[in-house]
């Protein structure tokens, strides 16, 4: 028994160690490339050659030199992510509370609407939404990116499930104490939702930080570009931008990695929130 367990352990490692290395390979390749001049990349392709004669910190020096828009994009992305996540969480939580704490006419119908949104791929709405944003005069504004996602269906769904688990007595006790309906929500309910906020916050932040298509369609002013859009604009044959592209791509992964290592539990809770129905 003892022996077969050890054998199993070794067999699993034989499977998982190479698999993990394979998964880490692209990270290693881009990390390596970030130390090489872009010309090297164009000439020989992205490879694993550890050639110290061509490797330097030049790309990093350029990244931090301020002679490029990288950190403009970086801070735009950061600002957009923070505002978008804060607003989305608050509004989604409010809506979810309405669904979980009350019985009211039309509740079932409205909740079916929430579920329906979850089934419609957002991409289908790209064009009508694009025309709408245009007609509202919101082109090239961050509002155009934030507004359509404010009441996020899957976030509402998750919060509702979470709130269903909170004892109703809490609400009743609040009423006895003379708190208003909104006071109960703001002062009693919101504080106990912290873990749910953490999980959904991270999920939404990842979505927002990495989002390309919709922001790319509505933003045209380079000074407003987010990081993914900015990096994408570097992929043009009319300028030698591979230095910045590679080092910028690699650098953009780092903050998220740090966050992940710090808040791993919430990342995983957030990602798997949909799969485990409460």
């Amino acid at each position: 028994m003892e022996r077969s367990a050890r054998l199993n352990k070794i067999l699993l490692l034989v499977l998982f160690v190479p698999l993990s290395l394979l998964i880490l390979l692209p990270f290693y390749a881009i990390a390596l490339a970030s130390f090489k001049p872009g010309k090297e990349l164009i000439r020989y392709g992205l490879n694993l050659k550890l050639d110290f004669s061509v490797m330097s910190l030049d790309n990093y020096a350029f990244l931090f030199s301020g002679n490029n828009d990288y950190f403009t994009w970086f801070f735009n992305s950061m600002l957009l992510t923070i505002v978008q996540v804060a607003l989305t969480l608050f509004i989604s939580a409010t809506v979810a509370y309405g669904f979980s704490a009350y019985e009211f006419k039309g509740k079932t119908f409205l909740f079916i609407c929430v579920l329906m949104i979850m089934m419609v791929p957002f991409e289908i709405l790209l064009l009508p939404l694009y025309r709408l944003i245009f007609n509202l005069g919101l082109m090239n504004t961050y509002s155009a990116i934030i507004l359509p996602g404010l009441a996020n269906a899957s976030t509402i769904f998750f919060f509702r499930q979470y709130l269903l688990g909170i004892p109703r007595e809490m609400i009743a006790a609040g009423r006895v104490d003379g708190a208003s309906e909104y006071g109960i929500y703001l002062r009693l309910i919101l504080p106990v939702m912290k873990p749910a906020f953490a999980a959904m916050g991270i999920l939404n932040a990842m979505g927002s930080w990495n989002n390309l298509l919709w922001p790319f369609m509505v933003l045209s002013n380079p000074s407003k570009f987010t990081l993914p859009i900015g990096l994408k604009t570097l992929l043009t044959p009319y300028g030698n931008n591979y230095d910045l592209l590679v080092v910028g791509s690699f650098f953009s992964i780092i903050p998220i990695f740090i966050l992940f290592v710090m808040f791993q539990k919430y990342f995983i809770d957030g990602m798997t929130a949909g799969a485990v129905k409460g």
Partner: protein
Amino acid sequence: MKKWLMGLTMMSLAAGLIGCGDNSSSTGATTSVMDDGAGETATTLKYWTFVELHGQHFQSMLKKWNEANADRQIKLEVSVMPYDDMHNKLSIALQTGQGAPDISDIEVGKFPDFLNGTPQLESLNDVVEPHKASIVQSRLDLYTKDGTVYGLPTHVGAAVAFYNTEILESAGVDYKSIVTWDDYKKAGIQVYEKTGNYMGTADTSAGWQASMMLAQQGKDFTDDAGTPIVNSPEMIKGLSILKDLQKSNVIATVAGGQPDTEEAYGEFNTGKYASAMMPFWFMSRYVNYMPDLSGKIAIAPIPVIEKGMPTSYGGGGTGTVVTKQAKDVQLAKDFLAFAKLTLDANINIWNTLGFDPVNTEVWAMEDVTHNKDNKFVQYFQNNPFEVLNEIKDGINLIKSTPSSPTINNVINTTTFNEIFENDKDVTEALNEAQSEIEQQLK
């Protein structure tokens, strides 16, 4: 109650603030304000381009303009965007009547889309008039509709052959003896046998080679009425010659699909391909992206099917326009003509960009064309303008018509790939392309 309302108000304010801040004043690679010599009263003009280097040319011309026109000074806000992106956004801005820049570059392949219906661009006839005599007319024709000029050209783009003499010499080939495609084939076979390198590329994602073959036979992708004829006997003949070269290991497909891509620069730089038949501006790609080949590249006329055929055509190009939304139309037009049509401008286009300027007077100015300090002159074995002056009378025009964008899209994504990558029969592939184009234009 109050807290709740306050919260909401704050949020909407925050959202509004972010939304409204439309004042752009960023510096860096993508947007930059050029204010050389411009005083307080200068007018700011917005300029969009997809080529970073074009901005540099405008910068040096801007300085001269501001010195010469103290009362009409200009600041130029340059936005560099990726090719597809810039054209999409310009198209939307022009159609909706808001958000367009004062001045913009439009690539020749996309230009017809901007001439549909009533062009939302300003006529440039009046500013072109004084320069007309010295400028290659066919380059203006590319950007003209019903007698109105809407765009100013940057270069002629005369196609020439670039040979890597190091490879050719090691195979015992003298590029000067190559006149016809038969000569080229013989030389190529020798190069492949002796060195294992290919003589040239078989392009799958661009129409340079097809244009070259059509121009030699005096034909085009469309007939005189502008109707697409991509399965013409001349097109079939031209591509069959290329296909035969590929079968004989003289040419082969290249990473990136054509010479003007980053991947292909790498392949050329390492010496895998010994020649490229490209428009004149490809010189700048050698100088900027293929440093290892410095001193090894010679320029010559392109081989022909039969002796006496025209060897060249004008390839690629950018028309710079003034949009109907320009703040000060006349100022924008005057500056544009100054920056693109004057003799000064044309000399500068050669000096900074390495293009063959549309003002052919420059071609004869020995002190400019043979300037020893010029990096383009230094890079190549022979002087580019000697070849240019030699082929001067054999530069054919490949027209730009309303159906050109569709034609280019079909042949550059599908047809050439089928022929050179999948070994599909040339005639069959071209017939299919013709019907696909007809269907899309319906």
